[in-house]
Each structure stands twice: as structure tokens, then as C-alpha cells.
């Protein structure tokens, strides 16, 4: 674990795995004075909290934290995305196998970013790890389910995007007026279900 200064009141905590990211996130999120905790692929940005955060981190061994119980969210998906055949061809399997692999895997929200409620899910089977599209779409429809690199995700609203799209969901991914505005938050477990 390495602490990197990030402005006057921030620290970027660098760790070596997504699991350690989750351990750091849980350790610092309730420290007094903390304004933002932003987990990412291999880092957690902590803004505010000063000495309290440093004290908590000094006592933490992020590799020695039990998997805490997490909420599971199920996303119903219609697998008819425009890139389904491309994904199948790249992986050297059939479209049906892509769907089966995507549905049978168990995912975790590693972090959010890009747009409100856009959750990067880890746990994608290796065979489905694929590059982004060579030319991003100028508009990806709301609810589109895509894959890119080691991640899969669902688009909470229509935006430009370069992920390979394999399906779509009607799940309410982001509702700013809801008690919990984002359906998926860091640490949640996620499954996809065929509808």
C-alpha cells in the first residue's frame, strides 16, 4: 500500500488488487471529516479526514480483510446487442455461449465513473475480455449492456461510448431522486439474468 498526495486535503491510496481497493474503501469511508471516497481499479482516492485517515490506513493490512457480506443485485437483460456477434467471433465461440458465460459469472462493482451510476463490474470470464470498439458510438442507448477490457457495465443514460454492446436492461440504474440514487454502488455483487 502506497499513499500519494493528491492536493491539499486528498490522498490517493495505491494497492495491488481490486480486493484491496474494497478493503481500503470500507476502512476509510466512515472516518470523521472524509468528504469523498472514490474507489477505482487499483486506487482509492480519499478527500478530507486528514490524520484520521492516515491513522486508519497505518493500522490496515488490506490483503488480510475478509470478504464482507455484500448486497446482491440482479439485472434482467435481453441479449440482442449490436456487437453480440462481434464478441462471439472475437472469442471464437457462439453468441449463445457468450450469453451463457455472461449470465453464469458473478460480478462485483469495482467502482463507478464515466457517468452517474455507471458501474464497472469485475468478474467477466477471461474469454470475454475484449478491446473497445475501434470507433466509439456517438450515442449508446440507455440501458445498453456492454463489455470492455476486464469489465462489463450497463449504461444508466444515453451517452457516447466505445464498449461492445451485447444486450439491454430496463433496470433503474440511476434515479437522482431516489433514496439511493445509484442502483449499483462499489462493493455490491451483481448477477445478470436472461429475460
Amino acid at each position, binding site marked *: 500500500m502506497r499513499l500519494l*498526495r493528491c492536493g491539499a486535503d486528498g490522498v490517493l491510496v495505491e494497492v495491488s488488487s481490486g480486493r484491496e481497493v474494497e478493503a481500503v474503501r470500507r476502512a476509510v469511508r466512515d472516518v470523521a471529516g472524509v468528504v469523498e471516497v472514490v474507489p477505482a481499479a487499483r486506487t482509492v482516492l480519499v478527500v478530507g479526514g486528514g490524520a484520521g485517515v492516515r491513522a486508519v490506513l497505518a493500522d490496515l493490512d488490506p490483503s488480510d480483510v475478509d470478504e464482507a457480506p455484500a448486497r446482491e443485485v440482479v439485472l434482467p437483460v435481453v441479449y440482442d446487442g449490436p456487437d453480440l456477434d462481434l464478441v462471439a467471433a472475437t472469442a471464437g465461440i457462439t453468441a449463445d455461449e457468450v450469453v451463457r458465460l455472461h449470465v453464469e459469472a458473478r460480478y462485483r462493482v469495482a*467502482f463507478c465513473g464515466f457517468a452517474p*451510476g455507471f458501474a464497472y463490474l469485475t468478474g467477466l470470464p477471461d474469454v470475454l475480455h475484449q478491446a473497445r470498439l475501434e470507433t466509439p458510438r456517438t450515442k449508446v442507448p440507455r440501458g445498453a449492456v456492454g463489455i470492455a477490457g476486464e469489465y462489463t457495465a450497463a449504461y444508466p443514460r444515453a451517452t457516447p461510448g466505445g464498449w461492445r454492446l451485447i444486450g439491454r436492461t430496463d433496470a433503474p440504474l440511476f434515479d437522482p431522486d431516489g433514496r439511493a*440514487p445509484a442502483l449499483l454502488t462499489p462493493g455490491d455483487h451483481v448477477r445478470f439474468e436472461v429475460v
Partner: protein
Amino acid sequence: MSRTLTVLATGPQALVQDRGRPGHAHLGVPPSGALDPVSLGLANRLVGNDGDAAGIEVLIGGLAVRASASCTAAVTGPYAPVRRNGRDVDSPVHLAPGDELAIGRAEHGLRVYLAVSGGVDVRPVLGSRAADLLSGLGPGPLAVGDVLPLGAARGVPVGADVLVPVRIPPELVVPVLLGPRHEWFDNPAAQLDKGNWAVSEKSNRVGLRLEGTSLVRTESTRYSELPSEGLVTGAVQVPADGRPVVFLADHPTTGGYPVIGVVAPQVLHQLGQARPGTRVRFRPQG
């Protein structure tokens, strides 16, 4: 009669802004909020509002509104002429029902702020009324004909004899705290210290794009990819072409290019006022 402002003209861009919605970055929600919170705060005090009241951030000028009810209005930021019913007035100014307030073109700076007693009372989203252009949260850019609800006036306007307008010098000297990824650059402090930049036309509420010196990475990181990581407001991110971007209030919550340093918070509001062409020099610290 309900208290409202009717928008008669917007200028290039007029946005409802307050202190923003920090605390939601882990959901992918930017902080947003006024780019010059010092000027918005002053305008709010002048009309007797709480610090968290929303006002209108006007790019360059050109906003005109009609008040439906008696209220006090204050215009802050860089100097821009203020007219009530077509006549020049000093700010703060009282508006009677039916009065029209027009803000002319600012001669310096970029963002003029209008606060009205009671504050602009559009529906808050995640605790803030700020328009977030990157994520599409909060009210969209104001359009002619919009009717903005005003809250009930509460405090007493503090009044002012003379308002000192914001002035941005032709060259801004910007203190920067190195990190978190300064180690990705050869002699990062020296490179920042010697570089010369100017604010690009492509700048917006997401970030100040700078033209000029290209910052050079170390040999070992030149072709490396940085996994996305959290970004703070004021982060000086360096994309592959070496030309820095300083992230402002509507910045994305994560990014994948190295951040060489973070601008000291006390000068951020000046960056929010810097017109294209303003020269920028960085002064690395620590």
C-alpha cells in the same frame, strides 16, 4: 403572487449554480457548483441569502430577467454594466414587481453572478440546484421564457457602498502541489516551473485546457497505461500529447491520464474566470 424570475435573454450561457453536490463522486457524480464560488458567495451575502442559496452564473454577460415580486438583486464577478428597466444602476439593486434587470457584457473575466433575495429555488438534485453539464444533472442551461421560482427572502441584505469587481491579470501564477503522479514525469517541478501556457478556447466547466509547453514523461512510463483513478477538482491531468488540463467543477470523477499536481484551492476561482488567451504559469510546491 408567487415570487419568480422570468428569463428574457441568456447571453452565451446562463446556468443555475450553487456550492455544488460534493460527496457523490463514488457514484460517478461530479461536484459541479459555481466556478467562482467567491463571487457567488458575495452576491448571496449582498442580498441576505444563506451561503447555499442558488444564483445564476452568466458567461460573459447578456442575461436579462423580469422579477414578479419585490426583491434585491446583486451582480458580482468581473465588472459588467447593470440596468434596471433600461437605466444604468449600481448593484445591489432593489427590483419592484415587473422590473427588468439586464446584465451587459463583462470587460474582463468570464463569469458574472446574479443572486436574488430568496435564491433561485429550482428543485434540488442530490442536495444541490447546480447545473452539471457533464452529467446532465440539475437544470439545463437557461432559455428565454424560463420561469424560475424564488425562495422566500429571509436574511437582511448587507448592502455595500462600493463593490470591487474581480480582475484577472493577463498572466495567472498558479501554485500547484505535486502529486499524485508527478513521478511519471522527468523533473516534474522544473518542467512545471519553466513551462508557459495559455488558456485554450476549448476550455469549459469540465476543465481548463492549456496550450503551450508539452510536459514530458519519464522514459519508463512513456508508453504505460494508468488504470483509471479518482480525480479531485484542480487536478492538473496530462494527456498523451503533454498539454495539461486543469479540472474544474464539472470534471469526471475518474480519469486514466497521470495527474502531475493539484492546483491550490485558493486560486481555483481565478481559473474559473480566466478567458481564453490568459497566460498561465505554474509554481510547484512541495
